[in-house]
């Protein structure tokens, strides 16, 4: 049934570096009685190429993503605001002039949701029954989700309902961590300076756990914090919402 079937677009970073985030996403969705399908030929949405100034390559990747997702049923759930925005906004823009793909890209875009948007806005869930004892968590709103898709309230609502979890705020929470995909390697020093500012705000917040909806930002912040020898944990919101203990 299309109503109870959803498609997982796991993203290339989750696939290769943080597959546990994908598994958590699947479990959260299945606990809601949904059937999760994983279109096996999915690869990368094309955002790295798009942001780096390679629209032709981005278009080819977007076409592939549209091909993989177009014939499927139900909502396409993405555990990333950034990749979701690529599929929702940029892929239809890139393929607007392509007679074979324009309509399909629009359809795929319209069916795509970032995970917390799907849980809160579409399923009407505020509480997914997660538990996490004794941790102080701070939420980092990733830029593309926040400003591209307007994700702010949804993750906070979900975090607020996690049993045992104390939620605190980061100073200047809305400021970018400095990841920015290719930005982090094309402009490494300025990216690292932004990271330092962000990590200082994490340290000052007293949070032992930083939660975000994008593994790109998380690996940037975690990689920087490890370099400091600091033990703060960085977790994707799906891992936290999947949690039933600790």
């Amino acid at each position, binding site marked *: 049934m299309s109503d109870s079937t959803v498609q997982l677009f*796991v993203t*290339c970073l*989750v*696939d*290769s*570096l*943080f*597959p546990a985030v*994908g*598994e958590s996403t699947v479990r959260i969705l299945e606990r809601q009685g949904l059937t999760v399908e*994983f279109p*096996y030929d*999915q*690869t*990368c949405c*094309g955002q*790295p*190429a*798009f*942001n*780096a*100034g*390679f629209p032709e*390559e*981005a278009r080819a*990747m977007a*076409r*592939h993503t549209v091909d*993989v997702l177009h014939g499927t049923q139900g909502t396409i759930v993405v555990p990333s605001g950034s990749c979701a925005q690529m599929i929702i906004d940029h892929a239809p823009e890139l393929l607007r002039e392509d007679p074979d793909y324009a309509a399909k890209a629009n359809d795929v875009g319209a069916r795509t949701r970032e995970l917390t948007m799907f849980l809160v806005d579409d399923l009407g869930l505020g509480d997914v029954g997660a538990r996490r004892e004794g941790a102080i968590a701070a939420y980092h709103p990733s*830029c*593309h989700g*926040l*400003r591209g898709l307007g994700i702010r309230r949804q993750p906070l609502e979900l975090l607020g309902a996690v049993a045992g979890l104390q939620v605190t705020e980061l100073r200047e929470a809305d*400021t*970018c961590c*400095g990841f*920015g*995909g*290719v*930005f*982090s*390697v*094309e*402009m*490494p*020093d*300025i*990216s*690292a*300076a*932004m*990271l330092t*500012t962000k990590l200082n705000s994490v340290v000052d917040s007293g949070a032992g756990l930083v939660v975000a909806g994008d593994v790109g930002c998380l*690996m*940037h912040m*975690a*990689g*920087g914090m*490890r*370099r400091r020898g600091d033990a703060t944990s960085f977790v994707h919101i799906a891992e936290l919402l999947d949690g039933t203990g600790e």
Partner: protein
Amino acid sequence: MTKRHGFADRAAAAVGSTAAKATATGAKRLDERRREAADDFAAMETSRDEARRIRLHTLANLDRYLDDFAQAVADAGGRVHWARDADEANEIVVAIAREAAATRAVKSKSMATEEIELNHALAAAEIEVVETDLGEFIIQLAHERPSHIIAPVMHKTRQDIGELFEESLGTEYTDDPELLNASARAHLRRIFLEADIGISGVNFGVAESGSICLVTNEGNGRLTTTAPRVHVAVMGMERLVPSFRDLGVMLDVLARSATGQKLTSYTTVITGPRRHDDPDGPEELHVVVLDNGRSGVLGDSTAEVLACIRCGACLNVCPVYRESGGHAYGTTYPGPIGAVLSPSLLGVGEWGDLAYGSSLCGACLEVCPVRIDLPRMLVELRARYVTDGHADRSLERAIRRYAAAATRPAVFRALLRAGALAGKVPRSQEGWIRSLPFMGAAWTDHRDFPKPDSRPFHRRWKDRA
């Protein structure tokens, strides 16, 4: 090794400097003020929509509004001069000064004259020019360039300015802003009275009346445009609004976005030179309309950037600007607006790397009073930079290879398996890599990189079935 772009190098050198720290402090302060002012103004969002509509409408009909404006300026007794580029604009101003037998000029704050480097041209023509805006005055004493569109000395501390005044004005050292202000004021007052010519910028030209509007907080703009015999206003050709009603909308969003004020201390509207019954004012008013690359941008995919009203809000909120400071950008206009404007006006080949100086976080779009989609244009300029053959070669190779793999699912999965194998090789601490070669070094110079998982999601999904 990755190729280091110009901006990347300059920004790297600036990070952590006193100037960058002063910039971060100043930018945050202005950003907070903007936020408070916007929160206090119920009509902020609708005014932004309206301001955007007005600016885009003006740009779409710019030829007509320029004609109207020029006619109205002439009708009011002023003269309009058209300058194709910086050299022409400078020649025009120098010629006006010579004709008026002027040897001393005062200037109020103007980014357009910074853009054309008018001060150099005047100096070369042996016309003494003094900046009268406090910030610009400091910049002139220090032989520097502004680091911010509305706060030219954002990169300087009070102590820097105290030392500069002690050195160049011979005043006793103080870092008390009131006292510094007073000594600049005392120094400038005399210069105002001796000046033959006053040079200003233009915040908005009003097409229906030929008026020019100046938005300032120091009163120097009024003195500059009234005390000397001749007033020359240099205006970017895009800076028009059709009517006074439109001007009101623009002022509502400009002051709030720039300094968090409802209205600046002085909002001056000048229509023509002194009339017979006016007690004061200049005998001549000249408006120099500057193209300098703008007409080329008008028909371009970045045309929207010309809607900018130079409030500086995008600089204040930008984390890249905050960490690097304005001088790292290397051109007249820093920050996200500069990263779009400079390559658009001056050429992608030389300045296109500025477009990579953004994490595309979108904060600039969020605060822009006219909602200019800077992130979209930054991406477009990157694409133009690549198309024109300026791309970082290692980035280009990496993207092309990745795209080739990502459009062939079997190859992509093979890449995942290869990554998983590589991830099994122990390198330093568990789960994380301390040092990567080639492009990866740009990452691991500053942060650890996660090891590829030994069981990628594709594999896990298959195992589960």
